[in-house]
């Protein structure tokens, strides 16, 4: 029984890992700093820890899908703000189409 639970957890972990990039790109239409993005994702039901989010943000930025800069907003401490780039927008549009296809296909299989 415990073994089954582990298997479920592992598969769910892989599933979440696969969709994180789409989720993050979709939430960066408006610029966000790290903590606000964590909360935004969590509020929508996709809680992830910072150890997963920040390396992902860096990877997406190195691929040119995000832009970031350090800024001081409203006299608070400096924060790094992330926003989707124009290349990221194009990629996200393609990913949305692929996502719809995957969901439709899997739903058909699960019926």
């Amino acid at each position: 029984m415990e073994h089954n639970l582990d298997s479920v957890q592992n598969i769910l972990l892989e599933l979440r890992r696969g969709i994180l990039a789409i989720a993050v790109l979709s939430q960066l239409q408006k610029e966000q700093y790290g903590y606000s993005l964590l909360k935004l994702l969590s509020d929508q039901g996709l809680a992830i820890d910072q150890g997963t989010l920040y390396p992902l943000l860096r990877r997406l930025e190195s691929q040119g899908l995000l832009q970031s800069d350090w800024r001081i907003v409203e006299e608070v401490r400096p924060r790094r703000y992330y926003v989707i780039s124009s290349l990221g927008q194009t990629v996200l549009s393609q990913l949305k189409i692929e996502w719809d296809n995957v969901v439709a296909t899997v739903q058909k299989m699960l019926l």
Partner: protein
Amino acid sequence: MNLLDQYMMEVGKHLPRKGCSDLQAEIRSTIEDMIEDRSQQRGIPMDEALISEVLQEYGAPAKVASFYKPTRYLIGPKLYPFFEMVVKIVFSVLTLVALIGASINFIIRGANSQAILLVLQNYGLQYLTGIISAFGNIVLVFAIMERIQPSIEFESESETWTPADLNAEPNPDDVKHSGLIFEILFSTLGLALFNLYPNLIGFAMMKSNTWIFFPVLSDAFFRYLPWINLLWILHILLDLYLLRKGTWQTATHLFNLVLEGAGIALACAMFIGPSLVSLNTEKIAETMGKSANMGINLFSILPQMVLLILIIVESIELLQGIWGLLIKRSARKMILPIVCS
């Protein structure tokens, strides 16, 4: 220094050097946001207790830093199959050499139970030392290759294979990774052996239940050693360049031919020059008794035989290389007018 400063300093120790201050600033910013958020939600001050709670939740410094580190390997998954193959081959060769050495000793000295035990004991120890040393050297070479060439693409056949490959002519300019890795490995082992442990090159005989070792290399050999080193180092550099490029070009073909030509010239000079072997004939005669002359003669002519084989093999390879280059060029000349017309 407050708790958060101490925590950030500890995280910094484990972060990769590249972009460390940027990463530290981002982690700190998030932690400060968490503290502020929690303080506002609960209506409590941002004191040490709250900072401690948030840091506890954020995780141990080493673990936090580990998320930002790329996975590093001593020998990565791309090189590992070649590493495994080389280890198997080297271990097989060492086992074969040990078995042949032990057998020769049995034949010459007789196979009584005491001699067998002593030979096994000594060869067993030598074999074990040799295996460990060879394994260490192979790991070292592959670890260096992993560090200096992490981007070498060792594509597996399944990744690039198409049914069209079944009928396709092999491209002679494609680099054979396994061959180059072998060459780098054995050239490095050769450099280490001849420069660091030249006294290990020789043979051992048993007399009155004790082993006597006879180094065989003469002073003449060591006069050629700088040239041998130079050729091997140039070969290693060429191999590393080819691994990076993934294909032979005219310039690398020509450079390889020059190296092969220089190798043949050096082998010829060593062949006609003074003997590369210097044996303590009196001590050998004393140890081996009647079979001494046979052993001395064998070791005297062995280097010349090896050099002769080397010269013949290298000359054939050189001629094949020149022929390949000429054919390639003439084929290009034949294709060009067709393309132009």
